[in-house]
């Protein structure tokens, strides 16, 4: 019976080849548009995330819980040697860079302001980050323990600081003593938001540990890269097991939740978007089915007259509606997949909007990605929606009275 209903429904669809083709093609195009948009946004998102991870986040961070909670400079990573030894020992970790971070007052001439000072190891920093900062004048730190200083463009402007100027930084060390040191501006960086440029400046980690009266090899946090980002959780679990209990490891999604959430939010938004497309399509299908029932009143009346029961008639109309919506699905998915596969190789140039995109940290050429993980969801969505939309025409058909339907001329 199922097979006969299916075959009859399929033939009924093709009674109006033009009308059905239009609906099926519209459905396919809608699905194509939906899938392509998902692939495009996901490509954009991935690129944005990748560049954020490469430029300034890294893949993960090691720190102590106390430091994460209150930023106490005394809460540096204990047993630093052991921790770094385990990083070295892991074949999953490709690079790591220690950092000391403290707040400080910067003073130049008559002006002063509060800043965050990042003590970094220039060489190691370069291994973890492709460009920790984009130095536009001078150069980045070269010496792990010199008096070099790299400052943001906005802060430099604000304080009237130029390359090669001398500047005083004032810290409170871990014992509470005030320490003032003279630094030499060797580089000015630019290209991030003004807020960041005004807040962060870089000095050598060795110099900072001395200034804060911390042990010579110490760090508030260690950023690291792994060889396989997909395995990050497993790698972190292994590292955690091999390290002192007080240190905590956080993946990039914990370090920068907005970035991780962007993926999830985007996925949600995309599903809503595709649902709206499919809803619009479903109305087209609803309309087609209502027309078909109106045209076939006589025949449906005859079917009921000769003894087709209501559930069978209901099944027929529901099946017709489902077929009408599902027929375009494989085509839509195929078009979506093929177009994403092709553009994933060539990329899509966004030259016309390049300016705007760069400000959001998005590359000017987007490489969409294929999104097979969505296909089943989309298919299910089409199925559920068209089932819901089939109920109304099916009910309309059931309400037909055989005698009156057959009287219609």
């Amino acid at each position, binding site marked *: 019976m199922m097979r006969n209903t299916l075959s009859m429904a399929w033939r009924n669809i093709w009674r109006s080849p033009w009308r059905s083709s239009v609906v099926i093609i519209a459905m396919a195009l809608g699905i194509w548009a939906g899938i392509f948009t998902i692939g495009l946004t996901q490509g954009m998102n991935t690129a944005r995330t990748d560049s954020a991870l490469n430029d300034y986040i890294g893949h993960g961070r090691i720190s102590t819980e106390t430091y994460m909670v209150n930023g106490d400079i005394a809460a540096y990573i204990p047993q630093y040697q052991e921790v770094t030894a385990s990083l070295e020992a892991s074949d999953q970790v490709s690079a790591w860079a220690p950092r000391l971070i403290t707040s400080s007052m910067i003073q130049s001439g008559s002006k002063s302001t509060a800043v965050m000072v990042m003590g970094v190891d220039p060489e190691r920093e370069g291994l973890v980050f492709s460009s920790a900062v984009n130095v536009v004048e001078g150069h980045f730190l070269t010496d792990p323990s010199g008096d070099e200083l790299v400052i943001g463009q906005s802060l430099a402007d604000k304080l009237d600081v130029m390359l090669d100027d001398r500047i005083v930084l004032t810290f409170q060390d871990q014992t509470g003593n005030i320490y003032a040191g003279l630094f030499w501006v060797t580089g000015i960086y630019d290209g991030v938001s003004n807020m960041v440029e005004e807040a962060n400046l870089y000095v050598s980690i060795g110099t900072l540990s001395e200034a804060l009266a911390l042990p010579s090899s110490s760090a508030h946090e260690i950023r690291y890269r792994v060889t396989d980002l997909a395995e990050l959780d497993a790698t972190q679990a292994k590292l955690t097991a091999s390290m002192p209990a007080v240190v905590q490891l956080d993946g990039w999604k914990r370090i920068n939740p907005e970035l991780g959430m962007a993926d999830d939010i985007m996925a949600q938004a995309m599903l809503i978007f595709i649902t709206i497309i499919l809803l619009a399509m479903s109305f087209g299908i609803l309309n087609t089915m209502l027309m078909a029932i109106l045209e076939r009143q006589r025949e449906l009346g005859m079917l009921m007259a*000769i003894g087709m029961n209501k559930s069978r008639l209901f099944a027929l109309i529901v099946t017709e509606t489902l077929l009408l919506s599902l027929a375009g699905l494989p085509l839509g998915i195929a078009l979506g997949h093929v177009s994403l596969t092709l553009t994933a190789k060539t990329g899509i140039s966004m030259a016309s909007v390049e300016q705007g995109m760069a400000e959001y940290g998005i590359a000017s050429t987007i490489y969409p990605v294929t999104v097979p993980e969505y296909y089943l969801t989309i298919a299910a969505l089409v199925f559920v929606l068209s089932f819901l939309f089939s109920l109304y025409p099916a009910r309309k058909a059931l309400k037909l009275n055989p005698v009156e339907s057959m009287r219609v001329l």
Partner: protein
Amino acid sequence: MSLIQLNDVLKIYTSKAGDVTAVDHVSLSIEAGEFTAIVGPSGCGKTTLLNAIGGLDRPDKGSIRIGNSDITGMSDKALIDFRLNNIGFVFQAYNLIPVLTAMENTAFIMELQGVKKTERLQRAMDLLSAVGIDGKANNRPNQLSGGQQQRVAVARALASHPQFILADEPTANLDSSSTGQLLDIMAKLNADEGMTFLFSTHDQRVIDRARRVITLEDGKVISDVHV
């Protein structure tokens, strides 16, 4: 006991233009094996009467019994099943499902009854050859003439092993040679297999073939003649 028994059946249509008594206190009985025509001028109530007998429409008063079943008291759902298993229908037009072949149309009703596939295909083929359409078994209705379509409809009506066949003006859309052929087939099935036929017509050539003629006027039986 008669095959079909009508007791004081009344059907009134109410409309803005006024009430129309389409079937006016009709009592009749039809025996198994009859070949009976319901005749009368247009609007006399033939279709209304046949619809009531076929369980397609409910009378306002009176009762209709078919075999052992009183169909006037049945629920809609039970009536559909009853029609499927007890009555063969041939309508004036639009009898067949356009997307199915002659063969599939004939087998369809058996499929609704739950008959096994091999059995229904065999029976459909037998019936199509009985009505002389076996050569066109795989044609769809639009590839058949009006007369051929009506013959497929007769085959389809027979397929369910009904107690009788109800045909409302089966020849109204046919030319005289197709009309003759269809009646030959119906008469043969009646004679050879004892299948009961109850049909309406206002075509004299068809009336001449009937063995009982019930004449209606304004919803009343005005004559009932066994030929």
